[in-house]
């Protein structure tokens, strides 16, 4: 399942459905809202493009690491401290492919999928800075 949604998911169900007879390893990445003196986190996405990007990343990871199954669920909307933001479930024949595939997916999401986070505090809020360098301004 590749999804951008407000609702949480049951990770146990995802793990169960990821397993195939030939599966030797399932790796779960669960990104959660950390308490950096915030009250809530608000997430926003350019949904159409973000979903296409997640699907492309899942496809690339499947080929590159011979994954048997990939789930990526990125939540949007307002989330409380401790809530799930991003769940990645990958299944592979062996642990190395599963770990490497999971790492590839999270790094690709952070590098290029159009989703933004705002940390809400008692005094207002602050946008979490993204990684610079991808405005693609050419050098002369």
């Amino acid at each position: 399942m590749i999804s951008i949604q407000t609702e949480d998911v049951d990770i146990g169900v995802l793990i169960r459905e990821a397993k195939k007879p030939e599966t030797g390893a399932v790796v779960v990445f669960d990104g959660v809202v950390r308490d950096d003196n915030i009250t809530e986190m608000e997430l926003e996405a350019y949904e159409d493009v973000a979903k296409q990007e997640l699907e492309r990343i899942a496809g690339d990871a499947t080929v590159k690491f011979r994954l048997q199954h990939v789930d990526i669920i990125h939540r949007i909307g307002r989330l409380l401290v401790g809530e799930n933001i991003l769940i990645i479930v990958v299944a592979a024949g062996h642990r190395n492919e599963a770990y490497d595939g999971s790492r590839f997916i999270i790094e690709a999401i952070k590098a290029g999928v159009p989703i933004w986070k705002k940390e809400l505090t008692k005094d207002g809020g602050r946008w979490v800075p993204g990684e610079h360098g991808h405005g693609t301004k050419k050098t002369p």
Partner: protein
Amino acid sequence: MTVKIRFFAQFRELLGTDIITDVSSGMTFVALIQTIAKKNPAGYTAIFDENGAFREFVILMKNGKRIDITDAAKTPVVDGDDIAVFPPVAGG
């Protein structure tokens, strides 16, 4: 000729989003977004530098595909374009 402009994250807070506007034939991306951004000086300053060029971290998309910000000055918008303007992404 009508186009749609979407701003995201802090740009959306400053300038709004899903802005549908009429544009004249031959108008470039830079000219269009400058015109809209000038409605809020803070929004304009967030996106453009003192020379009126896109700040180097600004990301542009046309119909879901990235456009190099240095090409935006010479690329005209066309009827039906869906344009997105946003800061560096921070998901995950």
